[in-house]
């Protein structure tokens, strides 16, 4: 393996140095900031320059990005990005790049198969109509299942580096707490209490008002369905709790690092800051901050402001100086538009710079990625983005 043996990653100055010492990279941030693309770019660069077997697990990639990675089939299957795709991008990678998507339903089914005490219970759970509904939304199941899959793949030892994209959540930190919530759920008194009537018809005095109210609202058949389902589910508790603990340990392991992705807009950046604070509070390692869609620095030049203002105010006189460009009236109009457009974008660029300066804490590795002309449609595009964040 080409990877350096050093662990920890403290003192890394670039994403390259950081990833050289890690086995798990978790890409997070709010929706629409380029989290998935950034994960793909980091993984592609690692496979190209660091070597080894690198896997990127994405949740819901844009079609073009999925195509760029050769992910035409949906599902949990890990697929190798073909050497030809790299060749077409003019790159000879040192290692292998693999890609997979996260299929929540399939992952839940796998989990049930693994933890069910016997075949009968397994089939009962899988066939249960409540389970079919719940596997999509149960206890923020997407969050948990993403972390669970990560743990599963990491334990397989098949990959030197795994880059995982996190599911879009209401709150970016939800998935950090998902393993703990899962463990809590299975050890809760409430679950035992809720499942009690399935085992015995005798109700305690304490639970009686609940059932009488719930009965009136939901009807007793529905309550019994719920109770039966949770009764079945509870049989998997020991395996689940143990597993959730292991998943939680993996998140805190020193071979794991977090990549926080944001744009310089107020709302995503606010969420990124919140996420960084939550990582700190949990003692989890913040590895790098990637700022996407950053406007170029020349927009903030003071000298250019004066030039743009003159283009607007003195357009007719200036048009006379460039007769080659066209008729004076037309050129004047274009010059004024060009000047106004610069001033417009300067407002946004300055706002972005202020947002960036206001970050109360940022990691040593901060990468700013400029706006790209077009959406990423092939591996060359992924690599072009990667070059911006790598060194």
């Amino acid at each position, binding site marked *: 393996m080409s990877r350096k043996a050093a662990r920890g990653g403290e003192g890394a100055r670039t994403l390259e140095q950081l990833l050289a010492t890690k086995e798990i990279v978790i890409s997070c941030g709010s929706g629409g900031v380029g989290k998935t693309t950034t994960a793909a770019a980091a993984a592609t660069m690692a496979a190209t320059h660091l070597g080894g077997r690198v896997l990127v697990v994405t949740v819901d990639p844009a079609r073009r990005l999925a195509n760029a990675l050769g992910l035409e089939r949906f599902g949990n299957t890990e697929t190798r990005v073909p050497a030809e795709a790299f060749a077409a991008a003019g790159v000879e990678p040192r290692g292998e790049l693999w890609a997979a998507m996260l299929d929540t339903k399939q992952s839940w089914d796998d989990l049930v198969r693994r933890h069910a005490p016997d075949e009968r219970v397994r089939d009962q759970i899988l066939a249960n109509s409540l389970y079919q509904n*719940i596997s999509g939304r149960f206890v923020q199941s997407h969050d948990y299942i993403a972390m669970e899959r990560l743990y599963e793949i990491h334990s397989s030892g098949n990959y030197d580096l795994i880059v995982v994209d996190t599911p879009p959540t209401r709150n970016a930190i939800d998935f950090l707490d998902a393993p703990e919530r899962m463990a809590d759920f299975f050890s809760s008194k409430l679950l035992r209490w809720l499942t009690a009537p399935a085992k015995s018809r005798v109700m305690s005095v304490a639970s009686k008002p609940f059932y009488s*109210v719930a009965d009136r609202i939901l009807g007793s058949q529905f309550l019994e369905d*719920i109770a039966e389902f949770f009764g079945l589910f509870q049989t998997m508790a020991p395996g689940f709790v143990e597993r959730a603990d292991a998943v939680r340990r993996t998140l805190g392991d020193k071979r794991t690092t977090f990549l926080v992705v944001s744009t310089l807009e107020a709302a*995503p950046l606010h969420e990124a800051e919140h996420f960084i604070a939550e990582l700190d509070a949990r003692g989890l390692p913040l590895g790098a901050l990637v700022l996407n869609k950053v406007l170029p620095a020349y*927009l903030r030049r003071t000298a250019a402001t004066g030039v*743009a203002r003159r283009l607007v105010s*003195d357009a007719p006189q200036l048009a006379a100086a460039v007769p*080659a460009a066209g008729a004076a009236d037309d050129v004047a109009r274009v010059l004024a538009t060009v000047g106004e457009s610069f001033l417009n974008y300067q*407002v946004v660029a300055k706002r972005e710079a202020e947002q960036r300066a206001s970050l109360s804490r940022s990691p040593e590795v901060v990468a700013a990625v400029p706006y790209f002309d077009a959406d990423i449609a092939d591996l060359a595009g992924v690599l072009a983005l990667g070059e911006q964040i790598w060194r």
Partner: protein
Amino acid sequence: MTALLDRKLLFVTGKGGVGKSTIAASLALHAAEIGKKTLVCEVDAKGNLADFFEAGDTAFTPRELQPNLWAMSMNTEESLKEYLSLQLRIPLIARIGPVARTFDFIANAAPGVKEILTIGKLAWEVKEAHYDLVIVDSVASGHIIGQLNAPQGISELVQVGVVRNQTQWMLDILTDPSRTGVVIVSAPEEMPTAETIELTERLRTETDVDLAAIVVNRVLPELFTERDEAIFERLQAPGTREALSAAVGGDVAPVLDAAELAVTLRRTRAEHLATLRAAVDPTLPLLYVPYLFTRSHGARATRRVAELLAEEL
């Protein structure tokens, strides 16, 4: 088709990051200012709707932020308590305090319960005609179908009981296009466009709720006509560039580069706009909100977007 603001209940949804809350807040502000008593309700637990009005935090009990404009944030436990006391006339709410907590636990786990408490409260406000218009800053596009289908789902899962009886009037309101509609907020970028088209299709095939409009947010202005673009290209020729710099008395390169960037950004986005237009029903209202080149966010930006939306309506 009933005009957007003449409906009674609007669910504003969209992919994360497109400005869903901005549009919900701005629509509500505009509706209030044209004289409709409007309730804007935040459903997501993020709790930042208040930022768009800069008028303090919102709670389950609606608060009047300015004349005709009321705001609240959804809380399913509060909704349950209100439901129990209003719908079932169950006395002694205090006694069922712990029950409500337990119920919240089931609500988290069992399908549709949280959603029905949310939809139920909103539909209730419509049924009781407490407001002229209820605007919901709803869940993101990935979850909206589940939320809208909750009454149907519950009525299928629960065979008997009060809940089943209660779902019918909700369905009547939700499926009536003269009263209820969905507003999808999109942006001229690849993922939001793809998600909008997908959601349009899913709303049609998986729900009976009407799609009222699509709002395309952050549309960049067209800088040049074709003729002006030819002039712009000639301006960039090395000799011309230098002559212009000399006349201005400063380097014009960054200013020209910025215009080039603006043209490129606009072009990429225009492609996504064209994709969206081609994919949706041509009779569906598409409202365009331009990108705001301002320093402001919060109440001033909300007001500006409300003005821009008003022009489109």
